[in-house]
């Protein structure tokens, strides 16, 4: 057998690749194409000029026509490849176009004007990742402001969630008190009802509290997640009570027991909840859309939705802003992917 082929088809355990392995890898690679292809297409498109973006059928890479600076002309001239009647081709720069005639010059010899039929010329193009869309987009899409709001909301809501959820979970897991079961069961019961179906009354409450157009209105109401309390409580139940008793004998207050014994031991569960909270809050869309109506308070997601509404036809700008919006969470995911995927696999929630 061909040693190269043998090497290529070798796999762990030195068995050779069989038919079902090939089928598996084909399936997986196709899956990668489908799952990541759309995002790659978005990224490629975001670098295209408005001319290239309107081109149909579209091309994968962002092409752009080359230009040259020719002596005697102020503006850079567009470069074309011209095919002459005798079959020879030359690269010429276009000076101006008159009807179906284009007046062109050789960049090396700028004095002589050559008249060419426009059907005889093809633009000279090269792949070019231009940042114009990003620069123009950011002038109306207040990326810095929206990013800042999103970061504030995500960080504040996550910290608040971790604090109040862990306190409640500690109380529910480590003490026996009248009303404990009622509180726990009520929280679990509300897990069943999505917030989206009680939007109107929640909006009423927010209005009464005066948190419309206030970041607090999207930080605080979502912080008391029943999911988080449930997750942390189940974890804290597994921490032995003897640790608390010995600390009490040493004179520690209950607060100290919570903050210095239970919290450090519950770190794995807290980490999972932190990851979820960041994902939830970063991607929140419906809720901020209802609460925020002034653009200075927009989060990235709401800002992007508003931007698309204003720039319906300028897809090149919208796509560039979409890339900016998905960039932060993508970077975080790239760094923490292993923790995130195993965290979800073990707790089974999102």
């Amino acid at each position, binding site marked *: 057998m061909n040693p190269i082929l043998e090497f290529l088809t070798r796999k*762990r*355990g030195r068995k050779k690749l069989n038919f*079902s392995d090939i089928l*598996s890898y084909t*399936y*997986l690679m196709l899956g*990668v194409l489908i*799952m*990541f292809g*759309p995002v790659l*297409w978005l990224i490629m*498109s975001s670098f295209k000029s408005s001319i290239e973006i309107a081109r*149909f*059928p*579209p091309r994968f890479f962002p092409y752009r026509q080359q230009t040259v600076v020719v002596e005697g002309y102020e503006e850079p001239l567009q470069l074309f490849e011209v095919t002459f009647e005798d079959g020879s081709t030359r690269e010429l720069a276009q000076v101006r176009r008159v009807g179906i005639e284009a007046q062109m010059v050789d960049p090396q010899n700028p004095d002589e004007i050559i008249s060419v039929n426009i059907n005889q010329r093809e633009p000279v193009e090269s792949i070019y990742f231009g940042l114009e869309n990003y620069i123009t987009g950011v002038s109306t899409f207040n990326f810095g402001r929206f990013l800042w709001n999103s970061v504030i909301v995500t960080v504040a809501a996550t910290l608040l969630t971790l604090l109040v959820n862990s*306190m*409640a979970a500690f*109380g*529910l897991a*480590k003490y026996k*008190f009248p009303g404990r079961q009622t509180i726990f069961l*009520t*929280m679990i019961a509300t*897990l069943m009802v*999505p917030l*989206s*179906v*009680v*939007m109107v*009354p929640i909006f009423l*409450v927010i209005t009464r509290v005066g948190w419309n157009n206030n970041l607090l209105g999207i930080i605080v*109401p*979502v*912080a008391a997640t*029943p999911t988080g309390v449930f997750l942390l409580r189940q974890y804290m139940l597994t921490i032995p009570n003897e*640790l608390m008793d010995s*600390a009490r004998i040493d004179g520690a207050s*209950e*607060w100290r027991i919570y903050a210095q*014994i239970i919290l450090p*031991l519950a770190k794995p569960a807290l980490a999972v909840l932190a990851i979820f909270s960041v*994902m939830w809050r*970063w*991607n929140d*869309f*419906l809720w901020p859309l*209802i609460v925020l109506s002034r653009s200075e308070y927009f989060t*990235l*997601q709401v800002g992007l*939705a508003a931007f*698309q509404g204003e720039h319906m036809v300028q897809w090149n700008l*919208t*796509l560039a802003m*979409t890339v900016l919006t998905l960039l932060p*969470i*993508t970077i975080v*995911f790239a760094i923490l992917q292993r923790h995130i*995927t195993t965290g*979800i*696999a073990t707790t089974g929630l999102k």
Partner: protein
Amino acid sequence: MKSEKSTGSYSTFAGSMGHSFISIFDFFLTPLQKLIGIKGIPYMFVLPNLLIFGIFILYPMLLNFVYAFTGGAAFFPDQRSFVGFRNFERIFDCQNIMMPNTCREDLFWRAVHNTIVYVIAQVILMVLIALITALVLNRNIKWRGFFRSVYFYPCLLSPIVVGLIWQWILMDSGLLNGILTSLGFARQPFLVRANWARFWVILVSVWSQMGFFMLILLAGLQSIPNDLYEAASIDGATNWKAFIGITLPLLMPTMTVVIVLALIRAVQVFEIIYAFTGGGPGTATLYLVQFIYNYGFASPNRQFGVAAAASLLMAGVLIVLTLAQLAARREEAY
């Protein structure tokens, strides 16, 4: 001793910061503990969460009943008048609920029909693809972590980003029509024709959620002990027999959880569709939550009562589904 050891992993700076933070709190909270006594302590811990929960989740849920049984266009409950079951009667004011045209609230019934079709098709397709992918990844695969991450990646994207990416691909002069044209086919009106839009809404939501369910199923598969398969192969069982006899029955509890979770999420579908098709064309992809949103927030003459009544009906369905999930989880635990 124990606490010293467990805080030792922090950096010194963060550690001392944390310590002084705890001490400051302790300074105030130790007298408080003396004041309210050890019996009151658990309430102190539960209180912050309970306050937020009570004000922003529980109270609105109760308010929803008030809205459902009152009428009028007023937003504040005290300006609304009690109408009994009239909002519900209005929803069920139908000659034939199978034909939305014959209903007074035809949009509600259209949304119900659309949601039922969407839920069935989306859940079956997604669970099937998630299962196949998990089974493939459970084989002796190189770069499993890479594939797992790539498949999960769309789950991280926000609804608006997902909606924009797919609008861009499916628009009339988009990538997919470009590929079709260069292969010699005609362009398709993907987002203009009702049935095409329904089809793509299902596919896009599968694309954006499949990775999550795949992860849960993969974890379920990996918890099946390997020696079961070894024993089966010693007994001469084929791969197929091992799959039917071992994998499927042992994966069943996880499957039940996945199916019910997927059902609950499918019934609640809104944000992705709002950003992707906006419910259109016409009412082709109008689903229940969007109906409630439109009636409560978006339409010029808001009908809070009807929206609240519809949301109560929907909550009923969700509670049944969640109870089924809890039962399934209990089964899984034993």
